[in-house]
């Protein structure tokens, strides 16, 4: 059994496999299929200060080897989260991370401050990359000045592990990773979804109520992998890789490109046990190749 432990900031994870925000609910939804205790961590649904109903139906379109979504951060807000979800999340023997969203810098700061006081939440993922909201989200993650402002402000009020989730919808993702590092983030996670769209040619209408949405799934994996590789070479803080990981080999590719950890997202919709299968698969791979820890293969392609 190889050593699968990894570290993000001061936080140790039992293995490098984490469930991605927006694809695992609050963990309980997937418990019939696997135990959360087998995972490195789970990042629960994107949360805002206020209750949000999200975008109108239809919010989803299947595409070649992927899907578009335009959920728009539907969630019940932090008060409801604290009262109803948090007590259940305390019971999981894994790191529970909250994905943080807002319309303004003040929203992000206030929400981060609230989460800082919740003992069972050891980290937050600052989402400056949601493509499906009119305000906030990707607007912060595609403008260097805004990104710097929000990360800096949150860092001042949040003293636990801070992960910044980056958008692929930029010319140079490493610029945003560097800004995250300079402003004190403990890690960056990438990529969020790629902005895309689909039209039903027969009805001559867009398939999403919002016209555009975020593309995920295997279709985006090569793009995500490239960005993770570039980012891992550009910063010294850990990089958490995600984007179209469906299998052990997909996860290994991200790790070999330089990711310290990986997130399993859309794959859980199709095979809800993907994350635990990947944990097992990474362990088997390391044993077969005689690597005593996952750290041995992190960024290995850059060492050859």
């Amino acid at each position, binding site marked *: 059994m190889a050593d699968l432990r990894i570290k993000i900031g001061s936080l140790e994870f039992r293995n490098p496999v984490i469930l991605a925000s*927006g694809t695992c609910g609050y963990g309980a939804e997937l418990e019939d299929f696997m135990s959360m205790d087998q995972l490195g961590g789970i990042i629960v649904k994107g949360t805002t200060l206020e209750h949000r109903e999200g975008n109108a*139906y239809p919010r*989803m*379109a299947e595409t070649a080897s992927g899907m578009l979504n335009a959920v728009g951060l539907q969630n019940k807000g932090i008060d409801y989260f604290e009262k109803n979800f948090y007590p259940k999340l305390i019971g999981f023997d894994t790191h529970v991370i909250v994905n943080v969203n807002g319309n303004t810098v003040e929203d992000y700061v206030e929400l981060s401050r609230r989460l800082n006081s919740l003992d069972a939440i050891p980290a937050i993922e600052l989402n400056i990359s949601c493509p499906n909201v009119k305000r906030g989200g990707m607007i912060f993650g595609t403008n260097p000045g805004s990104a710097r402002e929000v990360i800096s402000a949150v860092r001042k009020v949040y003293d636990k592990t801070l992960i910044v989730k980056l958008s692929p919808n930029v010319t140079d993702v490493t610029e945003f990773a560097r800004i995250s590092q300079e402003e004190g983030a403990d890690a960056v996670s990438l990529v969020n979804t790629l902005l895309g769209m689909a039209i039903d040619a027969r009805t001559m209408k867009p398939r999403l109520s919002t016209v555009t949405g975020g593309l995920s799934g295997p279709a985006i994996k090569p793009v995500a992998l490239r960005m993770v590789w570039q980012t891992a070479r550009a910063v010294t803080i850990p990089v958490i890789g995600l984007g179209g990981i469906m299998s052990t080999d997909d996860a290994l590719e991200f790790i070999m490109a330089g990711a310290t950890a990986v997130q399993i997202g859309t794959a859980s*919709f199709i095979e809800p046990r993907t994350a635990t299968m990947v944990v097992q698969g990474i362990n088997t791979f390391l044993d077969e190749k005689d690597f005593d820890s996952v750290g041995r293969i992190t960024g290995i392609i850059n060492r050859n």
Partner: protein
Amino acid sequence: MKKRVEDLTVTGNKRLGESFFVIKVSSSESLPEIKPGQFVQALVPDSPATFLRRPLSVHDVDYSQNTISLLVQIAGPGTEHLSRLLPGEKLNLIYPLGNSFTLPAKGERVLLTGGGCGMAPLLYLGRSIAEAGITPQFALGFRNRSRILDHDEFLKLGPVHLSTEDGSEGHRGFVTDIPAFREGEWDRVYCCGPEPMMKAVARVCSGRKIFCEVSLENLMACGMGICLCCIVPTTSGNLCSCTDGPVFNINDLKWQTSG
């Protein structure tokens, strides 16, 4: 009931009319309890072009044989692929998913109405109602005679009233034009079919203060309440049709008044 992911074995696949088929799959284990109205998420085998699973209503369950039947309409390459699966081949399902119809109390008069692939959940619902000692009646609507699907199994459970839009069989018009529906004293009406049909049925039931549940067929990705894509606007806000539904009381739906 605990949900499971499982490879089941195809034991039959029968074409029904031009664009429907009934696929029967068998589990090597005991089936979990499956309630009428619940659905499965089927993985289209070896088909990367159809990335997501296909939500399919449970049409019938035979616990003695551990088999589940699914009535499916061919709507694209995914369902087309499923229609060509042969006995002995595997079909991976996540099941049982979703809520279920509310079963009637003893002595209540119930009508099950639908059309096309909306007939899918009505057979198992009808069977469950019949097993509870109530004789269900069915009102099934089709475009014309040639589109009428085999409904022998429904006839074994109770009277079946038919409508066709052109009057080529049964009553001319829609299910809501069937006299048994219009004039019957119903305690409960259950409906699954195309949205205009469900809205029409809901209008009649709402006007006559009849308890009515409909089963919705929204686009969905996960089927487990995690992607939040299949939402339905309700009086309690946006709910997931996969976990809060697919069965909804018409009084909770917002489209009922706007439609």
